[in-house]
């Protein structure tokens, strides 16, 4: 923050900044006084034992629950108390711990639904079906198929989303999130339920997404190998509080982290 150069802060300041963000359910603090910042095109891991508040932190950032205190800045704009769809519009996309695809739709439609975000065509357009409607639909279609092809799901575009294999469903969820053209992608335990080969592939995939789409990624993950393997920086939560932050090597040696995991 340099008051001498207003307007420049957009580039200097981190993409996402949580300042003492707190989420309380009744008397229980799921997240307390969390400071977290994420730079542009950075890949950060968020780890911690079960119930440490990782998913709660996601829900806080994406507006599923409004924060009970603190502030959340994204791209220099306050996000606290915005609705989830407004936050998505601002450029934050996410996946879910337990896959949440649109179950009645095809693979194509799942992605198409998300791709609409930046094509503001509505009721009148859909009813009139004029040229601009057709062009818009074609453009979205093209984008969706391109995305699906990038991730080798093009051949399944007409299949029901729920008919995909587990790993492909996880992949589809990531594609759907990318279709909103986010600046920040939140991945909630993408490796859950995967075997070693799939995990290795996932690590390559995350790296690929970061490079190709130039997004920042915040990754919640249980699997230490995955987190340590790809994250540039790691934040450790326990009981809703940040107990450590640093490079994978620093985290591995951090006494508090060891205690939190072993004392679990």
């Amino acid at each position, binding site marked *: 923050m340099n008051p001498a150069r207003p307007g420049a802060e957009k580039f200097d300041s981190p993409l996402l900044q949580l300042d003492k963000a707190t989420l309380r*359910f009744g008397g229980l603090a799921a997240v307390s006084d969390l400071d977290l910042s994420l730079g542009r095109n950075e890949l950060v891991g968020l780890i911690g034992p079960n119930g440490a508040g990782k*998913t709660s932190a996601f*829900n806080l950032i994406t507006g*599923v629950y409004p924060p009970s205190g603190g502030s959340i800045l994204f791209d220099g704009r306050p996000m606290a108390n915005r609705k989830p769809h407004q936050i998505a519009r601002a450029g934050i996309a996410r996946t*879910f711990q337990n896959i949440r695809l649109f179950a009645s739709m095809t693979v194509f439609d799942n992605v198409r639904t998300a791709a609409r975000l930046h094509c503001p065509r509505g009721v009148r357009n859909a009813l009139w079906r004029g040229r601009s409607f057709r062009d818009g639909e074609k453009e979205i279609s093209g984008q969706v198929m391109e995305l699906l092809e990038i991730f080798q799901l093009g051949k399944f575009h007409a299949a029901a989303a729920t008919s995909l294999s587990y790993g492909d469903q996880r992949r589809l969820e990531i594609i759907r999130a990318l279709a909103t053209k986010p600046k920040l992608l939140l991945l909630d335990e993408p490796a859950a339920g995967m075997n070693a080969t799939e995990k290795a592939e996932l690590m390559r995939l995350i790296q690929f997404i970061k490079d190709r789409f130039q997004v920042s990624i915040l990754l919640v993950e249980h699997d230490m190998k995955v987190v340590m393997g790809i994250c540039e920086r790691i934040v450790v939560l326990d009981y809703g509080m940040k107990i450590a932050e640093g490079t994978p090597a620093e985290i591995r040696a951090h006494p508090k982290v060891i205690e939190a995991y072993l004392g679990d």
Partner: protein
Amino acid sequence: MTELLQQLINGLALGSILALIALGYTMVYGILRFINFAHGDLFMLGAFAGFYISPAVAAVLPGPSLGSGLVVLGLAMLICAVLGVVIERVAYRPLRRRPKLTVLITAIGISLFLENTGQLVFGATPKKFPEIIPVYPVLKFGGLSITSSQLIVLGVTLLLLVALRHIVLKTRMGMAMRALAFNPEAAALMGINTDWIVSFTFGLGSALAAAAGILFAIVYPSIDPLMGILPGLKAFVAAVLGGIGNLPGAALGGILIGVTETLVAGYLSSTYRDAIAFGILIVILLVKPSGLLGKKEIEKV
């Protein structure tokens, strides 16, 4: 002043009846998280059960007397308890793992089935409910009049509330019900027989609805197969008002709705009386959806 007092007493009697029905809604909701739309019809069936068994009871116990009235009440409760258990077993249990909407639609179907079958079997024209307890003014003071039937309604309701409280708080069955409402998976792991508890809950709720039906018929002795629709809906509103899933809340909600409705009908306009409960429902859902005594539920993401 006398008129206000009179309206309050009338409202209290109506409110107790609604409270008894509301308890059934709230118990079932607490355990299965679904609105048993057909619950109001068990209220109707309770009244008809009383209608058909009272001659038989009168043959043994020449009435009308308090004793014979209570026997009719008890038998009607028993019959409806069995009906409630059967309905749950046949229509709802196979759907337990299905989407809530499926169960709701089924409940609407059951409700329509009971109402229309009732019209066919009992006849659509209203029937006069026999005098199963002696009805006479107990207290006449100026314009104020309290009848024996109103006292019976209040007394029986109070008795049933105390009994219910005992069952829920002091018996093993009640403990299991509470465990199931609190956490179904954990309760099942602890060896609680879910099906058995659900059956018991339906039986208990239906018996209370039947009692409400008899009490209603004692105060307003004209019964027909569609009589359960409005009281059923109003009782549901009462359950929501009190905080659905919360037993004292249901009782409180019932009394509040009964009194409000009677007061509005008495002082403002009687033609709007049936819209009042819905108005209250909309307001409560917009302002405090968890109800007066309910706890806020957090949706897990």
